[in-house]
């Protein structure tokens, strides 16, 4: 592996972005070309990633080199440098692999859109930023990518910018992410204050050797890791900053698949896995685990009542991300990242199939207006079913392996967390199959003219689906067979510290319980929804609460957004700025003018009045001089 390889890997999507971005005008007439340029750029990255992977897999030492000095001074040095180890290559393969398939899919999906070239430019830029995020050998590089993917997310969510809801969602995503970045930045500062560097290798070494400055006393690392976790919460949509992700579904569906399911939102998990050493030392994993499991449960409950396909998938993503945090939180870093990988495939697959459904149904998202699509869209149906089975934990499909590992590790940490996780697994299976039964089975409830046009998607779309379906089904079995002795654990062994919670209990027993719970969820969904559509109106208070997503958006709006807006407008601007400060300034001016107005009366314009005052002056001066001088 060489620096050149990494540079090519990284720069290919950037070149794609520049071509599509700058020459977009000339490419407009030939949109296929533009799409294939984008896909080709990612394909090059994919090939490079595979080379890098084989190199790491063959046991090469982790690659860690600096490209150039970025922000440097006598006391600080932040470089553009790359680190490629097992964790990086896993992420690289997910990003470029899923990314490439989604680029190809998009060529068909975005067909005819006026912003075609812009779309591919953004998508390439995203891949570039995401690659920086995972390739960086220091936290600042990670932050650069972190912000970069946030920007692309903003641009792509608001891709259809004449839709206000889309641009609102984009803005919301960016701003909520910024709140997380605030934590990330401060975390970085704390780390630098303590270690004098942000490079992973030297920082982790120093941390393990306990050789750093305790800027906040004993809790230095605790504070640093928690601040970093704030960043992860923002980016990976955990409680309380998850609100942007469901709205992000306003973007084109392939974007949701790539950015808001497979890659960007998992950046938080990647970051914590990357910082595993610090979290182990600081013992802050428990916080991560609790936030994760609560988010998983919370989001799953909301997903139960939604009727919008993409929103269900979005809440499902939030929920699954919660699982990943649960995994890395309880010290099962490899399992958390493993779930990240499997999730990237099956959730990406499900989003793409949802896109396929939308494509067929004239962009309809409400599943109450669907039903019976199985017959007309067989490939879509089957691929979706595979994805759903995978996420529901159906035995031997990919989700089964990764989720089970996480739950198993959670048991070792805290039985309560395990139970919540298990309940969530049940809910997951239930809402996923609710979606399947309502959408693909039963009678068609679509408008007749829409229904008549329903068709299977073109090959450029269904081929990526089919390809994605394979890993979704099998990757768990291939990489995860053998639990903690599996290939995946073996491969990533050098990256993560030894887990401190040794999983206990019978592995097979846990697998059995998980399977039963998953199957129960599916069965329950079948009982309720295989024949009838969900009712339109919430029937009871709990249902209403869930359907309105616990009113979180409304609460945030009332407690944070509006007070800031109104306070800024009325108190700060109108009162303080225009009233008080300008009031003082203008007041001084008014006083001077008032005094001037009085003095002005002396200027009568009458020469004699002036002479009188002059003579008065002479008299007084003389008097003073003569009689008192």
């Amino acid at each position, binding site marked *: 592996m060489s620096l050149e390889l990494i540079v090519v890997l990284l720069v290919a999507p950037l070149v794609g972005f520049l071509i599509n971005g700058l020459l977009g005008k000339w490419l407009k007439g030939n949109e296929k070309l533009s799409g294939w340029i984008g896909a080709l750029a990612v394909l090059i990255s994919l090939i490079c990633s595979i080379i890098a992977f084989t190199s790491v897999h063959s046991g090469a030492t982790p690659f860690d080199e600096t490209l150039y000095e970025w922000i440097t001074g006598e006391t600080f040095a932040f470089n553009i440098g790359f680190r490629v180890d097992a964790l990086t290559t896993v992420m690289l393969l997910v990003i470029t692999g899923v990314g490439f398939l989604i680029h190809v899919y998009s060529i068909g999906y975005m067909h005819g859109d006026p912003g075609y070239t812009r779309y591919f430019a953004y998508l390439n830029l995203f891949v570039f930023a995401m690659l920086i995020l995972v390739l960086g050998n220091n936290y600042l590089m990670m932050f650069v990518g972190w912000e970069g993917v946030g920007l692309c997310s903003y641009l792509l969510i608001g891709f259809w910018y004449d839709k206000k809801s889309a641009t609102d969602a984009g803005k919301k995503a960016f701003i909520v992410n910024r709140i997380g970045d605030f934590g990330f930045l401060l975390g970085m500062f704390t780390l630098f204050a303590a270690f004098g560097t942000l490079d992973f290798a030297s920082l982790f070494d120093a941390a393990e050797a306990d050789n750093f400055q305790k800027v906040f006393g004993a809790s230095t690392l605790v504070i640093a890791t928690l601040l970093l976790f704030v960043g992860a919460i923002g980016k990976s949509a955990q409680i309380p900053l998850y609100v942007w992700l469901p709205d992000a579904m306003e973007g084109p569906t392939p974007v949701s698949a790539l950015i808001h399911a497979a890659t960007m939102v998992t950046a938080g998990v990647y970051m914590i896995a990357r910082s595993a050493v610090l979290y182990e030392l600081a013992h802050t994993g428990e916080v991560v685990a609790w936030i994760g499991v609560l988010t998983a449960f919370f989001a799953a409950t909301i997903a139960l009542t939604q009727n919008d396909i993409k929103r269900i998938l979005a809440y499902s993503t939030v929920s699954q991300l919660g699982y990943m945090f649960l995994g890395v939180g309880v010290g099962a870093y490899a399992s958390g990242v493993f779930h990240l990988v499997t999730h990237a495939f099956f959730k990406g697959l499900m989003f793409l199939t949802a896109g396929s459904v939308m494509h067929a149904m004239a962009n309809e998202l409400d599943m109450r207006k669907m039903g019976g699509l199985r017959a007309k869209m067989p490939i879509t149906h089957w691929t979706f079913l595979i994805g759903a089975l995978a996420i529901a934990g159906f035995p031997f499909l990919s989700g089964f392996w990764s989720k089970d590992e996480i739950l198993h590790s959670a048991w070792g940490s805290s039985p309560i967390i395990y139970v919540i996780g298990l309940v969530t697994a049940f809910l997951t299976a239930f809402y996923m199959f609710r979606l399947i039964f309502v959408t693909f089975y039963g009678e068609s409830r679509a408008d007749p003219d829409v229904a008549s046009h329903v068709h299977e998607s073109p090959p450029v779309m269904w081929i990526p689906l089919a390809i994605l379906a394979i890993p979704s089904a099998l990757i768990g079995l291939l990489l995860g067979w053998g639990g903690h002795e599996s290939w995946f654990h073996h491969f990533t062994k050098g990256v993560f510290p030894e887990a401190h919670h040794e999983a206990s209990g019978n592995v097979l027993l846990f697998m059995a319980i998980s399977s039963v719970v998953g199957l129960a969820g599916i069965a329950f969904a079948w009982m309720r929804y295989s024949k009838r559509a969900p009712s339109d109106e919430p029937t009871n208070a709990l249902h209403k609460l869930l359907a309105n997503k616990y009113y979180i958006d409304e609460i945030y709006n009332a407690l944070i957004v509006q007070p800031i807006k109104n306070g800024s407008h009325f108190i700060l601007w109108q009162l303080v700025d225009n009233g008080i400060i300008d009031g003082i300034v203008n007041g001084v001016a008014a006083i001077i003018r008032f005094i001037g107005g009085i003095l002005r009366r*002396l*200027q009568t*314009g*009458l*020469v*004699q009045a002036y002479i*009188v005052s002059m*003579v008065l002056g002479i008299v007084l001066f003389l008097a003073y001089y003569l009689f008192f001088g």
Partner: protein
Amino acid sequence: MELQYYLILSALLFTTGVIGVLIRRNAIIIFMCIELMLNAANLAFVAISRSLGEATGQVFVFFVMTVAAAEVAIGLAIIVSVFKHRQTINVDEVNSLKG
């Protein structure tokens, strides 16, 4: 005669001129009052010149008279042109200087 009597007389004449300038509004009379004040000064000059026994004071009187002549000429010309514009020479009606 004692010098101081001349000086007292000079002071009184001068003050009379000042009062005239202050209370009269006719520009021509004000001018006359100014001449009065100049003359009062001349008187003092001459008196002191005599008291000191030298002619310098009288030379100064000569200068004062020249200046006074010039001043009167200009002043009266101004009065004439002001009158042509405003039909008045009352100084309180000429108040363009009012602030």
